């Protein structure tokens, strides 16, 4: 859980990076796959340190937007600038032959670190983010929620300023998902990053994000932006959260 000091520090860091301009800038982007238009004229900015949630109905091009930001796809029109982004897909995609810590440290290995050095860098995060004792567990020995935590650490340890989270908790049951949302809020308070979070869960968006961007059904376009100026940690039962959730749901219809 983020304490008020941590929240203040995070706000400060956000403001500092903000001064250097947006970490992600998407301008007038259109993308089609064959005859199917996924996104039309989408513009979006994410300031450094900001957490922006993108909500929209299934198939509105949310995942496409993340792949564009991560440089995995090129837009048909418009342009995308991002300060180095890493993707966390909905499926954890942990490698079954690696232990949890080696999975988390994968990006460090790819960058040339030795196995031991990569583990040494990953180990403190395991302890800090509630995964201590699970370093050497194999992915198939971990629950769905734990696997997502490891997948998130792998994303963090890629060392890129922008995290693109694609429905990170979409495959989890409701109880685990609520735990994971609280865990992610805490993890981001600890390890501030610029985050672009795609979800179809409006409540998740309001709980986690500084700003919620609503996309229309396919082809996706931005229909509304909702600022979430609420203190953290937030709970789903707060009236202010419920009100913003209702506002976002209305925008989706």
């Amino acid at each position: 859980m983020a304490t008020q000091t941590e929240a203040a520090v995070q706000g400060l860091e956000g403001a500092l990076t903000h001064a250097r301009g947006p970490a992600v800038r998407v301008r007038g982007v259109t993308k089609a796959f064959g005859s199917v238009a996924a996104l039309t004229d989408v513009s979006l900015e994410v300031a450094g340190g900001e957490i922006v949630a993108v909500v929209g109905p299934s198939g509105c091009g949310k995942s496409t937007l993340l792949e564009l930001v991560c440089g995995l796809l090129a837009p048909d029109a418009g342009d995308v600038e991002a300060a180095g982004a890493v993707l966390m897909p909905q499926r954890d995609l942990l490698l079954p032959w690696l232990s949890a810590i080696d999975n988390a440290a994968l990006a460090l290995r790819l960058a040339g670190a030795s196995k031991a050095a990569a583990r040494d860098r990953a180990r403190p995060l395991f302890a800090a983010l509630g995964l201590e004792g699970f370093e050497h567990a194999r992915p198939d020995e971990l629950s769905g929620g734990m696997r997502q935590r490891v997948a998130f650490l792998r994303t963090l340890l890629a060392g890129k300023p922008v995290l693109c989270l694609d429905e990170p908790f979409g495959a989890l049951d409701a109880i685990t998902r609520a735990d994971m949302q609280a865990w992610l809020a805490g993890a981001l308070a600890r390890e501030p990053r610029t985050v672009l979070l795609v979800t179809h869960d409006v409540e998740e968006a309001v709980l986690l994000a500084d700003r919620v961007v609503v996309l229309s059904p396919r082809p996706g376009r931005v229909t509304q932006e909702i600022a979430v100026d609420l203190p953290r940690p937030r709970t789903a039962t707060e009236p202010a959260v419920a009100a913003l959730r209702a506002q976002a749901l209305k925008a989706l219809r």
Partner: protein
Amino acid sequence: MLLGGWQLYAQLSGVDDFLLPAPTDVGAALVEDRALLWDAFTVTAGEIALGLLLALGAALALAVAVHLSPTLRRAVYPLLVASQTVPIPIIAPLLVVWFGFALFPKLVIVALVCFFPIVVPVLDGLAGVAPEQRKLLRTLGATRWQVLRHVEAPSALPGLFTGAKLAVAVAAIAAVLAEQAGSSEGIGHLITQAIPQLETARAWAAVVVLSLFSVALFAALALAERRLAPWAHRHPS
């Protein structure tokens, strides 16, 4: 059961001993001819083992090359399939003419027969990595080579074992046929000589020895697979 049925059939059916010896005759031959069988066995076992290694090396090199190059895939894959239709009795004498009675032509035959069942599952394993997994690796900064080393190669490991087990099953036949095409030693040579001498029990004893070797190799591979690719046998939670 099987042995009992065989014994009864061999004794009661009136089939001549030199066509189908009873298991007891084969057992006796195993003991009496053990020196002869052992000498032949070491030769053939060497051919099988080295031929399998050659097949493994060739299969891995081919699989990676074909996997990395779609052009090569189109050009080479049909040839690989075609290579499997060449009957050993046609190619083996030719190899004997070229390379003589030595070890090398046998290795070529064994490798030729064994590489194909390895190439196919390895290629499927390399190509079977989910597209999302590749995207993830790219955003984590992996190069093409790193994707191969860290993801595709381990993914192909269970396929490699499947292929190697299939290869072991056909390697013995290949070695025997290669020896029968021209050699002065080995199990195939022993069988070729035993049959016209009406020493059928000895020929069967040779078959038993070779089968045991194949079963042992197969078991060793299964064990190695459980050690080296344990994830392939665990069920995801």
